[in-house]
């Protein structure tokens, strides 16, 4: 089969001669990945604020600490690999290796003990940490604060999040504002498929599912701005399902509430159904937004205090939901862009 790629071979041969040199020192490669890992695992220039590496509250902060501790502890068991593999490779290479040769050597008691013991100890310590942290960071557990928590009801829609402040009788889309140093107690559901709610700088993710509720508790300890989003792929508008999170001090928060009340439109069932369609926030903004609202958010006043409950109960009526009644389906309604795949 001489037709097999004669020409490229010629080209390659030259190229290979150069690399042949490098090949001979193959063990040098062993430390390369470690260096790369260091570069990428600890990015120096974190400009993004949507990360738990730049926490705005104690929950994310503890998660960050835990992350670094876990990484550091595993190093106890892993660094020996990085260090010893190159050493062994050099010492026992066939050509020029200086180590002794023991072809039948196949077990050594004390070594076995170390091999099982060290990882076991590391895991033991890690497990202990895991246990403590998991209990203390149970997202369902309300956070103790000097002031009582503010409650927020969250509804996942295609492709936006609806935030209801039941006590304040307001609701928003595209913007979540919370007062600083005040615990936030969220209850979440979905009115479409399953999604995953996430504000990285404040707390971890939690799934939201139709007909069910999950909870998320956190507290912000710094004024600032970050982003939240959905991380579970849900279709064309998925990457646009983000919202701003603003942390304000008490007065600013009250001012904001007053503003929402003043400028918001009523969240009646008609409006809700528009929101619940298969549209991105930008699309509904065009339909429902008014000049008084900001460009990136919708403000509502809550007319039905049971809205959240009725969203959950939609799925417990005991009657089948056909597509016209199921938000998020094409039949329920969708934006114009959505008809033919949103081109980014």
């Amino acid at each position, binding site marked *: 089969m001489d037709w097999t790629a004669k020409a490229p071979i010629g080209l390659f041969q030259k190229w290979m001669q150069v690399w042949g040199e490098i090949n001979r020192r193959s063990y040098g490669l062993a430390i*390369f990945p470690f260096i790369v890992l260091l570069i990428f695992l600890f990015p120096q220039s974190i400009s993004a604020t949507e990360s738990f590496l730049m926490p705005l509250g104690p929950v994310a902060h503890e998660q960050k600490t835990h992350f670094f501790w876990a990484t550091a502890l595993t190093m106890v068991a892993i660094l020996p690999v990085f260090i010893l593999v190159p050493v062994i490779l050099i010492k026992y290479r066939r050509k020029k290796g200086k180590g*002794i040769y023991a072809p039948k050597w196949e077990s050594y008691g004390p070594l076995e003990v170390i091999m099982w013991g060290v990882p076991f100890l590391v895991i033991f310590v890690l497990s202990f940490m895991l246990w403590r942290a998991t209990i203390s960071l149970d997202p369902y557990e309300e956070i103790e604060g000097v002031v009582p928590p503010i409650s927020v009801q969250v509804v996942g829609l295609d492709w936006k999040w609806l935030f209801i402040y039941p006590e304040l009788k307001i609701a928003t889309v595209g913007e979540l504002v919370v007062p600083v140093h005040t615990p936030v107690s969220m209850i979440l559901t979905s009115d479409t498929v399953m999604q995953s709610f996430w504000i990285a700088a404040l707390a971890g993710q939690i799934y939201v599912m139709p007909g069910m509720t999950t909870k998320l508790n956190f507290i912000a300890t710094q004024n600032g701005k970050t982003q939240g989003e959905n991380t579970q792929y849900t279709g064309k508008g998925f990457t646009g399902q983000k919202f701003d999170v603003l942390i304000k001090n008490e007065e600013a928060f009250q001012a904001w509430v007053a503003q929402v009340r003043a400028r918001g439109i009523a969240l009646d069932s008609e409006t809700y159904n528009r929101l619940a369609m298969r549209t991105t926030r930008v699309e509904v903004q065009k339909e429902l937004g008014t000049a008084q609202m900001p460009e990136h958010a919708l403000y509502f006043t809550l007319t039905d205090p049971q809205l959240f409950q009725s969203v959950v109960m939609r799925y417990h009526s005991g009657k089948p939901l056909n597509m016209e009644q199921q938000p998020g389906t094409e039949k329920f309604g969708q934006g114009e862009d959505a008809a033919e795949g949103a081109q980014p």
Partner: protein
Amino acid sequence: MNIMDYGWLGKLSWDSIVFSKLFTNFSVSEVVASTAGSIVIFATVAILFLLTWFRVWGTLWSVWLTSTDHKRIGIMYIVFALVMMTRGLLEGMVMRAQQAAAPDGFLYADHFAQLFSTHGTIMIFFVAVPFVVGLVNYVMPLQIGARDVAFPVLNQISLAITASSGILLMVSLVVGEFSTGGWSAYPPYTGTDFNPGVGPDYWIWAIVFSGAGTTLTGINFTVTILKCRAVGMGFFRMPMFCWTVLCSSILMIFAMPPLSVAALMLGFDRYLDFHFFTNDLGGNMMNYANLFWLFGHPEVYLLVLPAYGIFSEVFSTYSAKRLYGYKSLVFATMSIAVLSFTVWLHHFFTMGQSPTINIVFGIATMLIAVPTGVKVYDWMATMYRGRIRFTTPMIYSIGFLILFVIGGLSGVILANPTVDFQVHNTLFLVAHFHNVLIPGVLFGLLAGYNYWFPKAFGFRLDERLGKWSAYLWIVGFMLTFFPLYGAGLLGMPRRSFSYMDLTFKPYMLVAFIGAMVVLCALVTLILQLLVSLRDRKKNRVPVGDPWDGRSLEWSISAPAPSYNFAELPRVTDRDEFTETKEQGRAYQPPKVYRNIEMPRNNPLGFILCVLSGILMFALVWYIWWLALITALAIIVVVIASTFRWDSEQIIPASQVQQDTERWLELVKNTEPVGRDLENTPQNNGYAKLEH
């Protein structure tokens, strides 16, 4: 719409063909889709043409398609895996390009979603699994000194339905579209309400059928290892690879059913309006997640365990030393297999269950690091006090050792629910699993490919290009996936076809460059094969032991005769062949030559492949009459096949004698070579004793 309301072509229409959209909606995305479709069609036509041109249909039929020989079935599995792999790889490239080009990518969101869904599905079910199964098929019976697997026809059937489901996936490129729900296909998103198209149906049937194939394979391998070992080969004399295969087969037997159930229930929801996972009427999608990961987690160990086995063989052979800590390794392998059934919840730590549950499953997950760590240390100790040769398989193995540890580390980090709440569904997770799948599974397979190729085909692969390819894989892998750790920590979700935050851009660019390097690696790999084919005369190793191997598969000629062993070996040691060589007992003629009974060729597998392929297609497209006919045909064919009474053939003793004597003659006339010359044309597969 009622499922019976469709015409005799079901949902099929002209608009289903991929090219039709090119006219109605011309765009880069559609061009990419149509190109992919054309490649499938073109490749099919080209293959059919070449087969006809070289008049090899007859050989193809009698030597390959109807063969029940485990070695040929193994090779067919691998070829199949490679074809699917090409697609999976290209999809990976396109995805990387899209993310590098974001926020102004060139693909529609749905198209991108199809890419990650098919990529994930293909890589796991149609690349990694068949590749592993193929290698095991080839090697394991040889290593345990058996003539074939326990159930050769069943073996053929497993291949048949795996292949037909793979072909179905290829068809989805041309007719209709694939699911956009990811490889995990979570409902309700994949339910009829939200995904009324045929996409999820393609996924369901491909999974159900290939899953059945894998289960049958698991049964076959388990029985083979438990019942067909050569005389004297106690459990603790089995090569390490066989142990890992045993554990992996057990995972196939017990882990595939949850997947089949999940996929079938999803199918019932979609086809017959059941309410397992729907939003309304008491359906519960959490059950799906639970079932999928009940399978999904053992699945990943199913893939990686045989790779661990391959590494064990490679480290020991190329360090010219016994495997260190055999019993430890066996125990570690078994612990991993059992533990893997107790950790599935770590894939949905964020679903809302109580911390107690998260703690239990988190700790169980971490525990797996212990036996895995023992394995890593044992491999290091195997090289310690050895004579290490830097051959291609060894470079993959060393690359694995270093890189896999990083992937394992990120796994342990993910196992902390606290941290997982932050990195779940991000690129950090994507980096984790590619970091275990590529250096773990694929490097293992590539090492195995380079290692056993001469046994299968009788000539060595080109060493230089092999090394080249290995380095390119290592470097390319690191460039592609390490940046994803960073991007994930900074909060980039997985499955994003675009992003607005330009912080991610540099990471995506580096990753794209990495993907290009990986492409070069693949090209080099193909080149290596072509060059080796060209030089096959020069690199022949007919004696069969090019690497100074240690287990039984090296004690016979290369390629191996159809009946494997003229006389079944009696085993006295763990490194049986090394032992025989050192005692000068190697290359002896058998005491007596006997007739050997082997299974005959059987067309059953091929027929089932065709029928099940049509059945799946008919189900996807709601062509009920066709589905009914093929389903009945399958039953009839299976029953009919049980009326075939003479499924064996006899290979006469004279023939065995002739083969063996010719081979022994060759051994006598061959110059043994030392290890320094093992990658030169002098190496004819006769290893010189060196110590």
